[in-house]
């Protein structure tokens, strides 16, 4: 019998080609962060949320942009629609100008 169809979640970063991942293939946030950091050459910048100016955020099914890591893991994988890596300058820019930077991510979700 064939396994259920998987859905893949896009991970995007400005200036890089987007990637797709199956979030259900990870056990927890630590595995997710490590894999994404590795994919985008950002080892050491995403693994510990408070220790870097790079931020991992996601768009949920209500089109809100949230910081990855606050929800219990099982709830996160149910509501995540796409993931975005924000550079320190993007975070600063978004704080000043609102969330226009994420429009393409939200429209694609």
């Amino acid at each position, binding site marked *: 019998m*064939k396994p259920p169809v998987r859905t893949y979640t896009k991970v995007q970063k400005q200036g890089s080609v987007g990637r797709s991942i*199956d979030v259900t293939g990870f056990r927890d946030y630590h595995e997710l962060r490590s894999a994404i950091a590795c994919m985008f050459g950002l080892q050491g910048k995403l693994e510990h949320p408070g220790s870097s100016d790079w931020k991992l955020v996601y768009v949920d099914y209500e089109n809100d942009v949230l910081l990855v890591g606050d*929800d219990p*893991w099982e709830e996160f994988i149910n509501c995540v629609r796409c993931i975005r890596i924000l550079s320190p300058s993007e*975070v600063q820019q978004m704080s000043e100008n609102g969330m226009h930077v994420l429009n393409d991510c939200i429209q694609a979700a």
Partner: protein
Amino acid sequence: MASYGEDGVELTELTLGPPGANSRRARRARKNGPPPSSSTMMQAFVKVSMDGTPYLRKVDVAAYGDYHDLVEALNDMFYCSSIGLMDGYGEWEHAVVYEDGDGDWMLVGDVPWEMFVSSCKRMRVMRACEARGLSSNA
């Protein structure tokens, strides 16, 4: 990687204990000791937005004992010290409002804590002057 049972349904691993990889809960647990038994049974994760910040956060309001614990956590979460309760005891730059079960936006702090935990659906941190404008009838 996911594995599948004989019937084709994806197998999931059950684990016991509090949600993993939540550094905030871990810090609080280290500071305050084990939480009361009632809070380990109930979770109430709600979104929190702060005007002017680029992304939302989520908090488990049921993990806190009272409004002051919650406000302290929000200041910690948004890297500020300007959020406070509009209880008349201090001038704060930011106030907290919440969306209740009826879909109304209400000022945080008026109702008993347990009632707030059960009715809060979402929170927003806004400038206190705007909150005063919403809460006054003038």
